[in-house]
């Protein structure tokens, strides 16, 4: 019994991460990244209650305006307000991140845990299938999906999500393997707790930190993938605001109206940087071993 009681105290860094990390120092990456992420979230939320003009509406104004008082970020070739598109495009950016990361985490995490908890052929099968999927480039998979099911944001992001499953499965498995060796899990198994119970009660809380970090990094990858697909004309379809699509549409006027490419390009770069920094910051914050580095 003493072993079991003692277990939580020895609960490795993962346990600490899931529990109390409030005392940790907030690092610059986390602050800057978190700030940028917050701005993107705020832009998206604001777009639901207010936009300067009707989203995607062709206006009776001059095209190619540079930023001015009427149109804060100018107007595009089709006389649409750029700032409005940036606001509404933030929704797409977050949407793609959530869909892709959602798909990847919902499938990848259980697979990783399954692999860690079934050391026999099942675990092998899961991880080897994972390796096969890992060999498949995410963008290629998305392009294939677009060819099969037509270009749409959701289809593209499900494809990106599927391609990101291995990342989640691996990181979950490696974290879970560590947890499975801990004394309290050994004890729980000895006490006859069901595998599902162990997974929910002990494994998931202990690998949550790892997953959150991975999610943040994958979020950035998804944003970039959406932009790349929209740039190829395969992602977000016409009539929907997306930063990648804005960039795509700006390419024919790159020389005469560079701001139309710079604005969405900057937004994409900044948000990708933001989510990456946020992921790094979270990792440092959650991982005591790195503290003080």
């Amino acid at each position, binding site marked *: 019994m003493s072993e079991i009681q003692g277990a939580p105290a020895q609960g490795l860094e993962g346990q600490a991460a899931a529990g109390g990390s409030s005392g940790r120092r907030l690092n610059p990456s986390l602050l800057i990244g978190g700030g940028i992420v917050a701005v993107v979230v705020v832009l998206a939320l604001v777009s639901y209650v207010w936009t300067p003009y009707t989203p995607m509406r*062709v206006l009776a104004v001059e095209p190619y305006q540079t930023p001015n008082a009427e149109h804060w970020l100018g107007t595009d*070739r089709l006389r649409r307000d750029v700032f409005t598109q940036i606001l509404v495009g933030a929704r797409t950016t977050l949407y793609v991140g959530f869909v892709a990361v959602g798909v990847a985490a919902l499938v990848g995490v259980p697979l990783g845990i399954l692999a860690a908890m079934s050391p026999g052929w099942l675990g092998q099968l899961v991880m080897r299938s994972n390796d096969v999927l890992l060999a498949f480039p995410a963008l290629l998979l998305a392009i294939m999906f677009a060819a099969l099911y*037509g270009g749409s944001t959701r289809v593209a992001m499900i494809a990106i999500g599927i391609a990101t499953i291995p990342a989640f499965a691996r990181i979950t498995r490696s974290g879970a393997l560590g947890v499975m060796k801990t004394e309290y899990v050994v004890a729980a198994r000895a006490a006859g707790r069901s595998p599902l119970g162990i997974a929910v009660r002990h494994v998931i809380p202990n690998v949550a930190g790892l997953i959150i970090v991975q999610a943040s990094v994958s979020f950035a990858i998804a944003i970039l993938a959406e932009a790349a697909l929209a740039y190829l004309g395969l992602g977000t379809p*016409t009539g929907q605001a997306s930063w990648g699509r804005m960039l795509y549409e700006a390419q*024919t*006027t790159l020389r005469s109206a560079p701001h139309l490419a710079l604005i969405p390009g900057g937004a994409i770069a900044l948000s990708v940087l933001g989510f990456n920094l946020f992921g790094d910051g979270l990792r440092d914050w959650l991982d005591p071993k790195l503290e003080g580095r």
Partner: protein
Amino acid sequence: MPAMRTSTKTRSLVAAVAVTALLAGCNAGSSTSSDTGSQDGTGSEAEGGEDTGDDTAQAPAPGGSDETVRIGLVAEPASLDFTTTDGAAIPQLLLDNVYETLVSVDVESGEIVPALATEWEVSEDRLTYTFTLKDGVTFSDGSEFTAEDAAFSLERVSSDAWTISLKSQLDVVESVEAVDDTTLEVTLSRPSNSFLYALTTRVGAMFDTEGVDNLAEEALGTGPYTFGTWDRGTQITLERNPDYHDEAPYFAAVEMRYFDDANALNNAMLTDSIDVVSTVQAPESLAEFEGGDFQIVEGTTNGEVVLSMNQEEGNPLADADLRQAVRHAIDHQALMDTCWAGRGELIGSMAPPTDPWYEDRTGDYPFDLARAEELIAEAGAEGTELRLRIPSLPYAVSCGTVVESMLEDAGLQVTIDELEFPAAWLETVFTNKDFDMSIVAHVEPRDMANVFGSPDYYTTYGTEQVQTLFEEADTGTEEEQVAKLAEAATLISEDAAADFLFLLPNLMVADPDITGLPTNAIKESFDLGELARG
């Protein structure tokens, strides 16, 4: 199959450009003597000191140079055989350049002019056409072009050797006979106004009786150029035909370079990798070429950008009031200014200004938002949801966005679906008619009857009234043809069978000293014979 044809062409024919070869055909006799002589040498411009002054003053240097001109295009042909392979890229490359036809079209007036036939007579009953062929014409392998070759070529169209659907254009031909070496007699089963015009297109191409064994890879014709090399995926080279029967072309060779997209094409022009952009695919990018370093050629095409409306029973647009509302709700000038940089022409119906039966029908449904709203109210269609399913082509995507905004201003709900072109668009819109509205450019010459002649076609119009007009137009006299087709165009416009957004412009960019570029692109070919560096 016409489906495939129309649509593959939409993309590539937008790029198809034509030049004024026919003018050359007309005054050929006067100037032949001077140029055939200089073929062997390096050309008079390079060598001859005396007449260089004239050469630079008048645009095309008659003797020709040993220079190669590089032309940028967007659609590479799939094969060289347009008798069995659809697609506009093949005739664009080969027709009028390698293969010639008996008659051709004047790109300025739209009239039919002599080519390999110097003249033709039509019998009283309009069933027999007697062509007098030009004497002394040879194929590039040296064999003579005679009426026998012409008869062979035309008869071959009706045989199983030709498989493309366009061959039906010569279904009206009953018999073809080579009377003597330079006289060809064609008998029709019924009078047809479209017959002579059909001869100007690929079905009228003249082949050598001995030269049709490997059409996919070899092309043997009488034209100013011969087929050179094909570097697949990159370029096709045509070389000057040293024995050409007419004024020899200026350039010793032509490199047709194929690009995947508009930007790559533009960049090639800006970096001097090509001398001519055959068709500017993104008119908003023209600003890059303004300022004197390049010349910009702007003319018209046959490409009517049609906003089709599915009027089959049960669809919202079966209601004529609603279709009329759509036409009133669109400010065509603003639309063209916005989505195609103001380049192009407003037409109002299915006939370009280069067709003899063209009438300006833009006044039928002037932009009138109040009237549009009134009509929508009458139809009880406020807030009706319409699916605008467009192909993923630059003009359709840009203009679709503008149409959406304009119709929503009038109180309709529009959702845009961008369908991959050609496959997805063809299946959904063209074949299954699962759409309310679509946007596509119909680029074939004189295609009003094809596009609006049948209720089974994707435009779902083809009323009996209009079908009768088309029939009367083809069998009647030429005057009747013009009158009946003008009437048909009026009817199509008034019935709001579709909306006609605008006519695609012919936009070319070239080095400032290139001459002989066609203003209007209304033929199937990109006629290279007149190109020169002035």
